[in-house]
Each structure stands twice: as C-alpha cells, then as structure tokens.
C-alpha cells in the first residue's frame, strides 16, 4: 500500500496531467525532482554538480564549513574553529559564492556572503555543490559556484524519529532531533539542533590557547508538503537559526568581542502539475540580523537587519519529452537598516528564460537568459549557453559559457558616509570544458575553466574614509577534478571520494595571486562498511597560500595535511555508537593568518533511529 502510494505521488508530482484528470502512467522517477530547487536538476547538465550524500554529510557534522572543506574543491578561510568562515570557490571571493536554500538565494543582503559557520548541516537532507556560473538561474553571487541546501520530502508512510548526540573535546556538545511523519497526503518533518562548545583548545606547539572562542547555536526547521489533490501540492519550508559566538583573540590583551546571528527563512510554495506544464508559485520571507558587541562586558552593540520578501512564479513547459522551457518571474523587496545604515528599501524584479533541448541521443544544449531591473544600479543582461556531447557511452564532454554578476550589497550602497550609490555590479564572463567518465564503479570528471571578473568591489581608503569602489580586475583559471569509486564485494562496501583543485586567481593590475586562494587543494575520503560497522578515513591537503596582496612570502601560510578517522557500530538497527578522531597527527595549522586551529581532538556520538 505504502509503495503504491509513493509511486502514485511521484507520478503525480513529476509527470503532470490536466487539472482534475487522472493518469495511469506509472514511471520511475527521481525524487530530486520534487525539491524546491528544480533547476538544479533540470538546468545543470553542462556543469558539474557534486552531490553530497547522507553518509558524507553525517561524517562532518555539524558545520557546513567542515563538510565542504573535506569533500569539495572549495577552500575556506576560518578565523579559528567555528569563527567567521569565508569560502573561495574557483579562486573567487566569498561574495562570489551563492548559497541557495530550497531554491532561494540566502546570501546576506548586508555583506553579500554567507558565513558557513552559521548553517548546520543536520538541518538539510540534500546538499549539492554546483561549480561555475549560475547567475542566470540563481542571481547575484553565483560566480565561483553555488551551494544548494535542500529539504526533500520522504513519501514513505510512517512516523520516524532520529536523535543524534555527540560530545567531544573542548566541551563540545551537539544535539539534533528530527521527526518525520508521512500520511496519505502529508509529509512533514521537524528538526531542532543545538550545538555548543567552550572551544578553548590549546594551540599546538605553544603555551597559548584559543581564548574567547566559545559559541552556541540553536536551529529549528519545519518542512511540510501537503497534497491538495492529484495535481496540486502545497509546501512550506521554515528555518530559523539563532547563534552567539565569542570571537577568539589573537592576543590575550585584546578586548573580547562577540557576535550574534539571528536568521529566519520561510517559503511557501504552491505547485501545480498539468499536462506538459508545471506551475510553481513561491512566496518567501527572509530575515537576517546581526549584533556585534565590541566588548562582551557591555550591552552596547552595532547591528544590521534586512527583511526580504520574494515572490516568484516559475513556469515549465515540456512541448515534447526532449524539450524543456522554463520561465521565471521574480520580484524581491529588501528592507534594511542598521546602526550605520539608514532605513533603506531596494526593489529588484527579474525575468528568466531557460531552454533545454536533448537534440538527439548524444547531443544536448541548454540556454539561459536573465534580465533584472532595480531602482539602485544598472543591471546587466545575463546569459548562459551549455553543450553536452555524449561522445562514446562512458565518456561525455560538456562546454559551458556564461555571464554572471554580484550586485552591490546594502553595506556597499548605504553605509553611513561611506556607501557608494554609484556602484555597478561585479561582472564575470566565464567558460569551462568538462570531461566526464562514468564507469560501473567509478566516475571521474575533470573540468578546466576560465573566469574573467571585472569591476570587483573593494573597500578602499580614500584619505579620510573607507569607501567601496569598482576597482579590481581578476582572472581566475584552473582545473577541478572529482573522482568517485564505490564497490561492494559480498558484505563489504568500499567508497572513495576525492577532489582536486588547481587554482590561479590573479589580480590583473598587480599580477599577484589573490589572498587566501591556495594553488592546490586535495580532499580524499575512504569509506568502509561491513554489516553493522562503518568506518572512514579522510585526508585534506591545503597548498600554501598568501595573506597579503603583494604575496610577501614572510606572511605566507604554509601548506598542511590533515587526517581524520572514525568508526561506528549499529545495534539492532536503532542505536549507532561511534567515535571520531580529528587531526590525527596533531598538525599545527592556521585557518587564517595567525588563526591557529585545534590539534588532535575527538568526539563520541550516539544516534538513535526509531
């Protein structure tokens, strides 16, 4: 009965019929199609998308930084464990990496980036990394690439509960509860996470320790899908994050500071599936707020706050099995204010047109266009074109070229005295060519890319104050490799996932490598599973990188290798007891200049599934 229902639902969801009519066609479908972020599946054929599976996600709990650092080519600068974390994706800046939550861009409107230590991986059940330009689909910041955090729905009827708990070094406590209930027309899940840590680790080879580094955070999420009838589904996604971090000191005489984040994201979506047509109406309300306390012993603080309303209409038409046409209209209003920002409102409207054609069995092309209009700056016309050639069955080639942008942020435009209303968006022209090999147990893809970014906004000192200006011209190019291997022999399953990134990111005026962009990064992770036992071994290599714009070797951060190991055992299909040892060889390394990271540390965990 359950199975039948599941199939029926999938069928309704993905192969739509005329309103009210029934269909008898039963097809096997990919569950991904029912996520809010349909374009990730439909319009990413000519770019590489790295899907991080549940087992990978569970290894590197709880911060998104750790997950992506150990499993993707993205590099992270981290001001000490759990502190502000900024990515460099394909040699670009933190503001050129978009974070997409259930199809909605959630980069901060204030500073244009996402702090990857303010998202808990346990709140999402599907995390993907899409390399390269995506502004046509996802808007601002999708220049280096985009990170997709999705909540997918389970349609297997029943009631499931998951409790995860973990305790480790530095009094680090992690708790997570997830409840999932599925009835005939309803699939709902509710999650709550709590993380806290004293985070007072001793520096390796030093008498000093990580002072004033403690943090806690709580996040809540609720996701509901309700089937109104055979053709209409209502979905609600809700997420709230509340966290406080003390910012660790680099000198024990510094004034201790702290930072609070409070973010909420709500999305309501009405999906209609009709013959050859899919209609999705989305309304989202996002709030972001930070408070910065320049002295933890004082209540006085600075703050910034933006509330955003987004209305989106997303219409897909499949005139034939091989053609997909997708049009999206979007209206966004951001209202922001802060201790240094007067009350400001920004309205942005956009129109997208996406087209995909599987021309024949070996050739596919996709095309995208986007135009935004806003009251604050001139928005360029964006486009993308992708080609896919299935040369010979296991081997295919993809080619993609696109124009992308990063819009000026609230801080850039409106900061008291400094804000520059004449800023233009940063623009990027990029091209990539990917080689993909897909064998029975092995997949390998190697992508070469070139990205020319102009009008990059930098805050510069003009003699009396700091002011953002369109100034830098940066060209990035490099190679990205992803290798995956999985094999099961009798009860033994082995997996090997590995990524490699070679990155040149050069300021065209100075001909110097951008700061915090390592030339080389390697990740590898070996998994082993035998009956109730599973184990993993991870390796991360970060090549040396510069911290000053003139690449002074004295201030270089040397390359380092990190290794983690873990094992767990599952009893009676309900309890999983495990342990993890991080930084096995007690390597002394820096997350940022003079930001020392922890040496060898451990955690033990118990997960309960009922």
């Amino acid at each position, binding site marked *: 009965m359950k199975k039948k229902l599941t199939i029926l639902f999938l069928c309704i969801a993905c192969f739509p019929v005329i309103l009210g009519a029934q269909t008898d066609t039963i097809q096997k479908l990919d569950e991904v199609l029912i996520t809010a972020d349909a374009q990730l599946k439909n319009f990413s054929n000519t770019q590489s998308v790295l899907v991080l599976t549940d087992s990978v996600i569970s290894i590197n709990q709880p911060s998104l930084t750790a997950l992506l650092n150990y499993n993707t080519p993205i590099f992270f600068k981290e001001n000490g464990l759990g502190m502000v974390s900024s990515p460099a994706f394909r040699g670009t800046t933190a503001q050129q990496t978009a974070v997409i939550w259930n199809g909605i861009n959630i980069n901060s409107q204030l500073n244009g980036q996402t702090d990857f230590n303010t998202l808990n991986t346990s709140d999402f059940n599907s995390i993907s990394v899409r390399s390269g330009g995506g502004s046509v689909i996802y808007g601002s910041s999708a220049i280096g690439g985009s990170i997709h955090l999705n909540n997918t729905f389970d349609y297997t009827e029943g009631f499931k509960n998951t409790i995860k708990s973990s305790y480790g070094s530095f009094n680090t406590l992690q708790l997570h509860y997830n409840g999932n209930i599925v009835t005939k027309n309803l699939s709902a899940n509710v999650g709550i996470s709590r993380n806290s840590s004293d985070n007072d680790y001793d520096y390796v080879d030093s008498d000093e320790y990580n002072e004033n580094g403690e943090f806690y955070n709580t996040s809540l999420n609720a996701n509901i899908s309700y089937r109104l009838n055979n053709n209409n589904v209502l979905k609600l996604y809700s997420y709230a994050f509340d966290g406080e971090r003390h910012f660790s000191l*680099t*000198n024990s*005489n*510094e*004034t201790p500071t702290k930072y609070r984040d409070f973010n909420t994201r709500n999305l309501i979506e009405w999906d209609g599936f009709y013959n050859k047509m899919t209609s999705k109406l989305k309304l989202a309300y996002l709030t972001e707020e930070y408070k910065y306390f*320049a*002295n933890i012993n*004082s209540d*006085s603080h600075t703050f910034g706050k933006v509330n955003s309303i987004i209305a989106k209409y997303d219409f897909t038409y499949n005139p034939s099995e091989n053609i997909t046409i997708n049009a999206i209209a979007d209206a966004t209003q951001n209202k922001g204010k802060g201790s240094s920002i007067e009350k400001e409102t920004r309205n942005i409207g956009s129109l997208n047109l996406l087209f995909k054609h599987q021309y024949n069995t070996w050739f596919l092309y996709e095309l995208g266009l986007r135009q935004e209009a806003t009251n604050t700056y001139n928005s360029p016309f964006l486009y993308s074109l992708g080609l896919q050639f299935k040369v010979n069955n296991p081997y295919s080639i993809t080619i993609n070229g696109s124009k992308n942008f990063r819009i000026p942020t609230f801080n850039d435009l409106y900061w008291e005295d400094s804000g520059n209303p004449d800023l233009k968006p940063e623009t990027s022209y990029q091209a990539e060519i990917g080689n993909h090999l897909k064998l029975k147990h092995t997949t390998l893809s190697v992508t070469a890319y070139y990205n020319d970014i102009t009008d990059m906004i*930098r805050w*510069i*000192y*003009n*003699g*009396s104050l700091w002011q953002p200006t369109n100034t830098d011209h940066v060209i990035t190019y490099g190679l990205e490799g992803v290798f995956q291997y999985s094999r099961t022999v009798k009860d033994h399953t082995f997996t090997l996932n590995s990524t490699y990134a070679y990155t040149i990111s050069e300021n065209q005026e100075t001909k110097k490598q951008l*700061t915090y962009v390592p030339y080389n990064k390697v990740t590898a992770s070996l998994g082993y599973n035998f009956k109730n036992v599973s184990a993993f071994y991870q390796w991360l290599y970060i090549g040396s990188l510069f*911290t*000053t*714009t*003139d690449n*002074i070797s*004295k*201030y270089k951060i040397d390359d380092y290798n990190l290794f983690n190991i873990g094992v767990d055992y599952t009893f009676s299909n309900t309890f999983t007891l495990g342990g993890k040892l991080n930084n096995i060889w007690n390597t002394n390394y820096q997350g*940022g*200049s*003079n930001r020392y990271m922890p040496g060898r540390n451990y955690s033990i965990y118990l997960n309960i599934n009922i």
Partner: protein
Amino acid sequence: MKQINKFFTIAFASAALFSSCSSDSDDDITTLPKGDYDNGYIVLNEGQFGTAGTAGISFVGDDKIIENDVYTTVNPDATDIGNALQNIFFDDDNAYIISGSANQVTVVDRYTFEYKATIDTDLVSPRYGAIANGKAYVTNSNGWDDGSDDFVTVIDLSDYSTTTFDMKVAEKVIEEDGILYFANGYYGSGQQVTVYNPSTEESVEIDLGDGNTPNSIVEEDDALYVLTTNYNGTANIFEISMSSNTITDTIDLTETAPNAKQLTIEDDTLYFTNATTVFALDINGTTPTEILSYTSTSAFGAMYGFAVEDDTIYIADAGDFASAGTTYEYSLTGTLLNTFTAGIAPNGFYFND
C-alpha cells in the same frame, strides 16, 4: 671622452667616500652609537587590519638601508607586540609602543629595541602617549563612540602600575615643560584643547569654537599650534599662548587646504598635508605655499604617515593596507631623495639621534 668621464666619476665617488668616512670617525669619537638602532629613524607599521602578527617596526639608518621587523628580529621569543600599532612615545632610554587592538604598551630600549616589559592594564583602544615627570599619559578611545567614555591611562614608569582619569575625546597628546596638552578631537567630534598639569592634576580647557575639531597639535617657543577641520568645510590653525592658555592667532586654511591634517613644525616653519600635497607656512606667515604634490601609485592609501625633520620630508604610503607599504624621503624643495619598502600600513616616523 667616455674614459675621462668615467675617471671623474670614480674620483668623485672616492672623494665622497673618503670625506664621509673621516667625518664619521670624527662623530664616533664624540658620540658612540647607543645601539644598533641609534642614528636613524623608526617607521611604525600598523599591520593588516584584523590580522595579528603583521604589524612591526622598521628602521632606516644613516646608511639609508631599511630593516623591517626590528622588534621580532631582536626579540624572537618576547611577548607579541600586538596589531594596529598606533603610536610610539619616548623617554631618554625607552620607546613605548602602543597597540590599539591588543590594548597594550610594549616597552623596549629605544636604541637596541630589546624588550623590557608589556603594560596591559587600564588600556582600552589606546591611541597616543606622552611622558611628564616620570609618568606616561596614554589616551584611550574605549568604546569608539562619540568620545564621552574616553579616558587617560597614567602609567608610573618606575613600576608600570596604572591609574586612569576621564577625558572626553582624548586623542593626540604632547608634553612641554612638565605640562600635557591634549587635542580633544577625532572624526568630527570634539573642539577643544585640554591643558593638564600632572603635579596639581588640574586642567584648563581651551574652546576652539563650533565644529573646529583638532586633528594635530605641535608646540614651539611658548606657543601651541593646533590644526582643525570643520564639518562645514573650513580648516584653521590656532595659535595658543602657553603662558596664558588663550588663542592669540587664527590662520584660515580653507581656501588652500580645506582637509588639512598632520601638522608638524621644524625650524620655525609649519608643515601640513592636504590629500597628497605638502604645504609649508612660515611661523609668522599667513599664506601657505605648496612645496610638493605627491603622486601615489595606489591612489588610496596615500599620505598615511608624514613627518619633517631637519631638511627632509618623510611620507608613508599604506597602499591597499594588505601589502607592504612604501615610504619616501623628499627634500624641502620637493625632490625625491629615497624610496623604501616598509612593513604593512606604515603610519608614522620617529627619530633616534
């Protein structure tokens, strides 16, 4: 012809060499250098914003060779000097280096740079310091608000014990004849000079008038010179009599230098900057003359540090604040003499001789 030219060049060079050698030995007889860092000047590098370990001290000797990271070279294992190095003040033996972010003052021998002590009590965002009667007085911005919570740290230099007293918008400070003169102003806040007598702990406040925010203060021959800018776009130099604590003259700079700053005085001439231009003004004059306009390769971090000593103008260029800065020496007529690659974000010059 070519041969002869070469000969003359060598001959001239040798003569110059001989003469300078002999004069050096003469000097050595009378004043032996007190350390490796005597006879030259110090460049203070504030470091990359928010990044520890990037600030430092550079030294340019009379040989015109710059040595960066003097502090860590001399004291490889000593306490961190801190970041956001803001100011150095001196007594006969010691240099006191203020770190704005690390809330500390590092004491070193001013000629050898050997580490002596770190003072880390009663300091919150310290700015500038001066010494009177065996005590150091350091201004503190505290919470970086409108200046109402600012204070002065008093450091007893015999045991480095500290006390504080409140002073609104406490910023630059100089000492003359045992009296301290505080310029109370920054970022458009404050419009007065506080004259503080350490022995009586009494102070006199001199009002500079509405919106006239002092940004630099110097003294010469019983007179204080205070440079102010105003949010209404005007700039003035106030001359204050140190015997009567009253304003005796005002020089309006609005027309030539509306954003004037970095006032200094050398041989009865006042020098100040406006953007990338250096002006000179005779101590009895009223009209400043432009002596050099400095072109920066980076148009944005220009004129981050400025000083005039003897016959030389010193300019520091902070570049993009995330790479090594550059310092320049110019003659008083605006001829470029020397260029040096300093540390990150050089902001000041201090003379050891």
